[in-house]
């Protein structure tokens, strides 16, 4: 039995269905990230777990206890809000202790708890300040302190880093990860940033239009996306999704990619997924991540199935750590990720290595993965 279980959760506002049957579970000490574009229902889902929104159908259990109809304060949860939601009229210490005060914890115990949390988050020198006197990062820490001090069964984070600048966001991301590792708490975290999702999560639920598109570990989501949406949403730069057809015969299938003003590329597939033979001579979507499309010297040495083809390079983007090259295949701009020192010129043709063991195929009609 998992620690957090969500079964067939539905949420309707009038006739509009915001959440359409969510099934998710999380083990104790796990880190679940709900990720998706804005309006996908991820924040609503978090609010239903917190008890700030009622649910229409389904069940939410924490540690075996159904919490559907419990008041937020009775659910043994703590929440960090996007805007931090620090009470502007109270000091940092007052903010952290407010929940305990409401529960009637005696003053000296409150003080002890505040000191402990302040030490963990290194905000001891800020305790007597008002929130308006703090920087963004400090407010973020105080908001986390207010959650930590409750020592709850479940932590809920609602896009906690989206108000910080880029550098601070990376620092706080590491901090949250460290906090999770040292305290071993169970966390549900909402974000629209797929890098946050990949780096923090032990489990990711990719959501769209009130439905979970895929639920799995970050590696599963990244390497084995179940449909076009997940493949496109996760990863930066995004996966190349190239319209192609399946050629070859019988046991030796190949992917045929159209090129502008030249004969098509045909890439032989050594161990094609079995479902692919049904698509012989039919259109498919060929998905390959930029790092699986590289210069032959930079290709993975031990990959079993690498095919090389000449491609016309249109744009070169040196990014410092890597060089990205843009070519055109199947009528779409395709990004290849090359070594930083790859000697490559725009407007020329150069051989690129396709790592076909990492390639995935989708049915353009259903948008689902072909397995």
């Amino acid at each position, binding site marked *: 039995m998992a620690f957090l279980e969500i079964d067939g959760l539905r949420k309707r506002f009038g006739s509009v269905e915001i959440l359409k049957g969510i099934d998710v579970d999380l083990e104790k000490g796990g880190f679940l990230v709900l990720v998706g574009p804005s309006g996908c229902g991820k924040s609503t889902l978090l609010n239903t777990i917190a008890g700030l929104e009622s649910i229409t159908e389904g069940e939410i259990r924490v540690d075996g206890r159904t919490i559907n109809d419990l008041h937020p304060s009775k659910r043994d949860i703590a*929440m960090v809000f996007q805007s931090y939601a620090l009470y502007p009229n109270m000091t940092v210490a007052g903010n952290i202790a407010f929940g305990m005060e409401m529960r009637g914890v005696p003053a000296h115990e409150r003080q002890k708890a505040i000191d402990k949390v302040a030490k963990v988050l290194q905000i001891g020198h800020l305790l007597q300040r008002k929130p308006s006197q703090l920087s963004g990062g400090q407010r973020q820490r105080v908001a986390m302190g207010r959650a930590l001090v409750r020592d709850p069964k479940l932590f809920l984070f609602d896009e906690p880093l989206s108000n910080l600048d880029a550098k601070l966001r990376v620092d706080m991301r590491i901090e949250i990860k460290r906090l999770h590792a040292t305290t071993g708490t169970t966390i549900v975290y909402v974000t629209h940033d797929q890098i946050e999702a990949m780096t923090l999560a032990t489990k990711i639920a990719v959501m769209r239009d009130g439905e979970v598109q895929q639920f799995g570990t970050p590696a599963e989501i990244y390497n084995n996306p179940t449909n076009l949406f997940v493949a496109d949403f996760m990863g930066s730069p995004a996966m190349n999704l190239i319209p192609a057809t399946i050629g070859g015969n019988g046991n030796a299938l190949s992917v045929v990619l159209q090129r502008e003003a030249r004969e098509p590329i045909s890439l032989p597939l050594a161990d094609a997924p079995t479902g692919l033979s049904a698509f012989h001579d039919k259109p498919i979507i060929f998905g390959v991540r930029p790092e699986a499309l590289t210069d032959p010297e930079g290709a993975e040495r031990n990959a079993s199935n690498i095919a090389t083809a000449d491609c016309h390079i249109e744009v070169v983007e040196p990014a410092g750590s890597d060089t990205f090259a843009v070519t055109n295949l199947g009528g779409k701009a395709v990004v290849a990720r090359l070594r930083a020192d790859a000697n490559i010129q725009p407007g020329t043709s150069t051989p690129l290595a396709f790592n076909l063991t990492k390639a995935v195929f989708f049915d353009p009609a259903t948008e689902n993965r072909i397995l």
Partner: protein
Amino acid sequence: MSVIATPTRQSTGGISARTVNRIVIYGLLALFALFYLMPLFVMLVTSFKTMDEIQNGNMLALPQAPTFEPWLKAWGETCVGLTCAGIKGYFWNSIKMVVPAVLISTLLGALNGYVLTKWRFRGHTLVFGLMLFACFIPFQSVLLPMATILGSLGRFGVTLRNATGFSFGLGNPTVNLVFVHVVYGLGFTTLFFRNYYEAFPTELVKAAQVDGASFFQIFRRIMLPNSMPIFVVTVIYQFTNIWNDFLFASAYAGTGDAMPMTVALNNVVNTSTGVVEYNVNMAAAMIAALPTLLVYVVAGRYFVRGLMAGAVKG
């Protein structure tokens, strides 16, 4: 060349044109200010003059022998109707009526605004619309119905006193006036607080809910301490309106001991025995105006700030 030349010419020409504009604007403003201050000035100087000086001198002239006598007389001796004990009793009547009326209507308005924005229920826009409508009801149209209601309440108070020995203030003219002003002011105070709380971050309320605070704990600990600007605006607005009200005061407490300041002032001026003591009348009027002036001076800077806060923040 021309590109460089044009701005310099414009700026030199612009400065003089702007100076002329400023002079015209400030000149007009000064003129209007003077015009508006004139009655106040006449009141002030007259209240420090002796009757001889008023009858023989110029209205705009400064007092030759300034005296506090008219002020003291207005406060303690002048005749209101038939009793001649000054206006001090009526001044306290007004205070006793205004303070509870302002506090109750402001707190209820805050509570309404809190519910209408943070605890929304089905039909909350309709309720708010009806409360808004209350702002547009003319005083005169509620005079008679309200008199009937107050009459019923008074009779109920008598029944209560016969039964329990205590009327709970029902039928008392001061309590009646507080009641009328609270009911009438509720539309305005609700409007002020609702619009202020509309922009108040809902996440704070959610955070307090997760922290386990109850409905009233959130109101008292989170909402009210962060409502200072709109609180001041509402208090100033309500205080001025209720203190200055003459119609309700004269209709429901126009005679007897509970008569508020505005009605008493009217009676001072209308007392027709002997010579008209302009200096005493002016002093009484100044005393009647002082509390509202004081409220503006003390809280005025919050007034502007509060009006802005609601308008600019999205």
